[in-house]
Every structure is written in structure tokens, then in C-alpha cells.
């Protein structure tokens, strides 16, 4: 246990170094990209004096290291600056968009894991049967299909042609939808079943209906990828000596497959999932663009198009930090499953 704590502490420390690197890169990026922020703030006919004043107020006339120190210190205080475009504070804007992206990413991940691991196991244990061929074909298609195109096609077929789902947007967040449940069946009315079910149901239904297509769009690549990895990992493990030994001493096949082989298969699967988290976030960005999903992705694309640097930096710091944090969690999980890595 002590060694797990040490391992975790080391990973957290490395993570902090990476986040610091992310911040530094973002700071430098702003200085190597063409164009001065003043150009985007000052009116076109602004005089030289006005431009100077704006540059001064942004601290642009300070030496680079002073600007860098200012930037790092204010970030540590939780201050992400103010948008060039709207003049509003960046941090609340970024965090207001976070739930939408998290909902999408979490739903897609859970659905992907729930489908892909059983599919991979079935595919490996019933090799060369119809289910195996179907799973293999599906996973090949899944990793080869651009998710934004899949999204557009899902909209064309399921939303436009059949009208099963709305084409875009997210009228209600999960927390608000759940909040209504508490209002209806909260402590003051006793926690019994709500008498008036409608608002909750319609909010939840609304949320669910709107998230189905984006979640499929985002999750398909991962479902396919994890199915492939589970299948090949499982095939590899089932051919190993320890599996034969377990079978030879008479353990039930289910136990051999799920307790022994699957557990060892999951180790590389977890590594890859951790490595591919960046892809998940990138996928969320483009999925949001397809479905007008009001998350971080839409915000960052707007910010880039407007060259709204404080907003760009705010979004990317949060994305980078999120990636690092989730990776530490993945590594911790990994160390639990495979204690060898802690050495």
C-alpha cells in the first residue's frame, strides 16, 4: 500500500510538471503567432496613443518574463483573464461549458465500454463464428469512419428522414433535469414517488433524446477500438500457459475466461484508453460542432476564430489539465490491476 501511495505521488508530481508545461506552451504560443492582440481589441481607426494605452493595460510592454510570471501567478489564483471580445471573465465561461462536454464524454465512454468489452470477449471466445465476423467488421468500420461524417449521416437518416431524434442542440443539462426530480420528490414532499412525474420525465426524456446521436457519434470510434483490443488481447491470453493450467486443474471455463484471461486482457486495454483520451476530447470538439452542442469544443473554435487569446488559453488549460488528471486516474487503476508497474 505504501508503494501504491508513492507511485501515486510520483504520478501526481509528473502531472503537475506536465500542466506547468502546458501553461508555458500556451503562453509562448501567443507570442509566436502573428498579429498583436491590440489589433483585435482596438477599433480600426484607433490612434497610436490609444493603441499604446491598450497595450499598456494588457501588460504587453513589460518584458516577456514579467508577463510570463504575471500569467502564471494569476492562473494559480484562478484568474484566467478577460475575453478580448466580450470583456467578460474567462473562468466562469469555461466552467459553464464544461458540464455539456463532460456529459457527452462520460456517456460516450460508458456506452463504449459497456458494448465493446463483451463484444470483444464474445468475438475472441467464439472465433470464426458469425458473431465474431460481425464484431470484426463493425470494429473495422468503426475505426475507419470519421466521426463527424457519421454524425451528419445519423442526422440525415434518423433525425431528418425518420424524425426519431432532434437534429441538434442541448436544451437542458443533465444536472437541471435531475434537479427537477429532487424538487418534485424532495424532502418536503417526502422521498416517495413523485406525484407529478411530467416535468422530470419530459426533462430527462429531452436530455436523453438530445444526447443519443452525439454520444453514438463520439462513442463509435472508441467502441470499435476497444472491441479490437479486447479481442486480440483475449485471444493472446487464452493461448497462454496459465490458462491451460487453470483449465487442466478443472476450473470452470467461465472462471478461467473472466477471472483470469479477461483481467489480464484489460491491462493493455486500459493503457490504450488512457493514451487515446486526447482523441476522445478532440472527438468531442468536432461532435459538438456537428450537433451545436454547447460545450468547450464550440467555445474553443469560436475563440480561435476570434483570436480571443484569454479564452483560447482558458479552454486549452482546462482541456490539458483534464487530460492529465484523467490519465493519473487511469494510471492508478492500471497500477491496481498490474502492481508490477509500481516498481
Amino acid at each position: 500500500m505504501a508503494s501504491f501511495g508513492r507511485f501515486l505521488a510520483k504520478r501526481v508530481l509528473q502531472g503537475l510538471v506536465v500542466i506547468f508545461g502546458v501553461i508555458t506552451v500556451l503562453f509562448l504560443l501567443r507570442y509566436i503567432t502573428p498579429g498583436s492582440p491590440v489589433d483585435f481589441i482596438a477599433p480600426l481607426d484607433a490612434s497610436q496613443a490609444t493603441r499604446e494605452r491598450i497595450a499598456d493595460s494588457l501588460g504587453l510592454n513589460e518584458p516577456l518574463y514579467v508577463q510570463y510570471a504575471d500569467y502564471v501567478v494569476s492562473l494559480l489564483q484562478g484568474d484566467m483573464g478577460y475575453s478580448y471580445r466580450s470583456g467578460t471573465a474567462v473562468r466562469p465561461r469555461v466552467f459553464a461549458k464544461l458540464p455539456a462536454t463532460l456529459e457527452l464524454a462520460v456517456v460516450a465512454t460508458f456506452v463504449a465500454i459497456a458494448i465493446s468489452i463483451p463484444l470483444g470477449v464474445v468475438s475472441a471466445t467464439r472465433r470464426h463464428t458469425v458473431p465474431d465476423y460481425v464484431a470484426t467488421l463493425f470494429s473495422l468500420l468503426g475505426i475507419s469512419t470519421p466521426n463527424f461524417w457519421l454524425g451528419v449521416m445519423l442526422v440525415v437518416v434518423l433525425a431528418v428522414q425518420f424524425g426519431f431524434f432532434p437534429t441538434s442542440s442541448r436544451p437542458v443539462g443533465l444536472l437541471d433535469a435531475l434537479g427537477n426530480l429532487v424538487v418534485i420528490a424532495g424532502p418536503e414532499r417526502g422521498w416517495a414517488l413523485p406525484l407529478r412525474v411530467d416535468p422530470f420525465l419530459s426533462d430527462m426524456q429531452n436530455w436523453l433524446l438530445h444526447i443519443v446521436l452525439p454520444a453514438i457519434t463520439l462513442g463509435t470510434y472508441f467502441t470499435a477500438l476497444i472491441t479490437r483490443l479486447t479481442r486480440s488481447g483475449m485471444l493472446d491470453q487464452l493461448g497462454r500457459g496459465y490458462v491451460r493450467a487453470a483449465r487442466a486443474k478443472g476450473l470452470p471455463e467461465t472462471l478461467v475466461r473472466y477471472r483470469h484471461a479477461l483481467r489480464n486482457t484489460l491491462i493493455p486495454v486500459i493503457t490504450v484508453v488512457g493514451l487515446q483520451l486526447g482523441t476522445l476530447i478532440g472527438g468531442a470538439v468536432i461532435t459538438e460542432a456537428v450537433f451545436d452542442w454547447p460545450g468547450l469544443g464550440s467555445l474553443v473554435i469560436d475563440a480561435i476564430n476570434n483570436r480571443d487569446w484569454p479564452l483560447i488559453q482558458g479552454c486549452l488549460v482546462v482541456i490539458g489539465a483534464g487530460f492529465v488528471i484523467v490519465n493519473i486516474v487511469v494510471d492508478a487503476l492500471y497500477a491496481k490491476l498490474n502492481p508490477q508497474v509500481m516498481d
Partner: protein
Amino acid sequence: MPLLDDLLGVLLRGLSGVLSPRTIRNLRSELRSSVLAKIGIVLIVVVLLMATFAPLVAPWNPTSQNTSEAREPPLGFSRVENQTTQQTVDGEVQIINEQVQVNATAAHPLGTDGLGRDMLSRVIYGARTSLLVGLLGTMLAMVIGVPVGLVSGYYKGRVDDTLMRIADVSLAFPSLVLAIALVGLFGQASVPVPDPFVTFGVAEVIRGAMSLPGGLTYPTGMPETFTLPGTVIVVVGVVNWVWFARVARGEALGVREEEYVKAAKSIGGSDGFIIRRHVLPNSLTPILVLGTIQVAAIVLLESALSFLGFSGTTLSWGFDIAQGRQYQTTAWWIAAMPGLAIVFTVIGINLVGDWLRDALDPGIEGEGGGV
């Protein structure tokens, strides 16, 4: 497919300077037993030929507009359109609303887009953009990533720690997000490259001698230049270097412990010499396999960038899908056709990647981000 087998045999023998005889034997035997690998090679060859000879095989100029033929459906489909016409009957103006069926024509087998441009020709020209960005971007990523990885793995210790933390920082930015930021901020510079087939008049001659189905002649006047999205190529290379660095490092870590490296060191070989002469050649197999997978990843990345409007060219599959979204209620094929082209291309590359992986067993499962 014995012909395919023979052709590949020749190709693989040509690579014998780089690959060991055992490697080539593994590749051939794996290919013989795998139908999927053959399908993958055929798909890639088709797309490569399409891209290379686009001015010869595309039925129409992909940029020439003809609004009277806009939104024609692909073969086998039809579309119903509400049409309002004015007619003067007995000195009275009558407005007639009627539904007209628009049928597919053989001249545009994949239909036409919102401006009446031929989808098939656009798909064929789009292959050029995708493959050029995919290949050049992968090469750039390799040129940046492999030396970093080899040095990191060869020296180990502090050098390795520093370089790998830099790699971690790079990984913390999702490649699509970083690519959008870089293209968006540095601008979308593109380079017009003269099309050799058109410049030297080959296209005119060959097209003049062919005819289209339906008795039409093959129109001449193909685009004289091809737009190379320069910023995008640089950005996708810069964004994906880290995968090559990781794989090259892993290999170098193993190779540096080999006896022949120790021997080279003991007779006074310099580090630079050992890395070039011993570490690099012995790390090549997984790097090549990763390179294949990366082409697929970069093709997907390019299409995503074009889809979001961060490209430098308007002849790209991703761009057309974005255009097609405007017509998602009336003309689904505008978005569908370029997407299918992407899927076929990427399936082809992935199948070849699987073939190489199964034959060479480089142990790099899961490296190389997708979109």
C-alpha cells in the same frame, strides 16, 4: 490473386535493402493467408491511382459550376422538387405549383452538389488532397519524432526524462484541438502546384480520345493547378510527432542493450554513428508500421480540419461534407459520397496496417491517435 502476389513480390524485393529476408518472408506468407490484406492493398492502389491520375479519370472539372444541374441525385435515386412556374393562358398569368421528379443522369453517376459540380470528380480530386496531406504529414511527423525518440531511448537518464516530459505536454493537447488552434492562428496558407498532366497537355490529348456514357464527349479544361494546403501539412506533422517519438524511444531502449551496440561502443564508435548505423536500422519495423497507421489517422485529421473550415483548399472530402450539411434535408449524397471515400481509404490503410502488424509483430498496439 496471383498477379497481385507477383507484383507485391517485386515491390518487396525492391525493399530488400531496408527489410531483412525474414521480414519479407513473413509479409508474403501473412499476405497469402489474409483476404483482408489483399482487399486493403486493392483499395489503397485504387485510391492512389485516382489521386495521381485525377485529371485523366475525373469525368468533369471538379470546380466548374452549373446551377441548372444542381443537386442531381446519384444513379439509382431520384429527388422530388417543388417547382413554381408562371404561364400565360388567354392573357392571364397563372402560377402553377407542381412537384417535379429529378432523376439521376449517367453523366453524373454520384450526383451533383449544390452548385451543380460533379460529385464523382470532386471525390476523385479530393483523394489527392487527402493522400498528399496524409503522406507528407506522416513524413514530417516521422522526421521530427524518430530522432527525438532515438536520442531519448539511447541516452536514457536525464535526456530521456526531459524529452519524455515534453512529449507528455504534447500529448496533453488533443491533436485535433491543437491542429485547429495552429491552423486558425497561423493562417491557412496554401501553395498552388501546377498539375503536370494539364501543363504538358497530356490530359487534353487523352481526354479528347475518350467518351462518356450517354454519348457525351469528355470535357477538356481541367484545373491547371492543384492547391496544396501548406499550413495543414506542417500542422498535422507537428501535431503527430509524439507517436513516432514514443515508438522510436521504446525500440532504442531495447537496442541499446544489444551486444552489437556494446561492441561498437567498445571500439570507439561515436554516439551519433551508433544511433545512425545500429539503433535506427534495428528500430525501423515498428516505425514503418506506425507510419502506415499514421497515414490513416492524418487522413482523418485532415478531413476533420477541412470539415471545420480550417483548411487551405476547397477540394477536400471534409470540405464537401461540410457543404453537404446545408442540404441534409434535400440532397444527402453531397455529404454522403465524400464520407464514403474517406471510409474506403481509411479501411484500406487500416487493413494494410493490420497485415504489417500481424506479419511483423512490432508490439505497438494502440499507438497513434485517431479522430
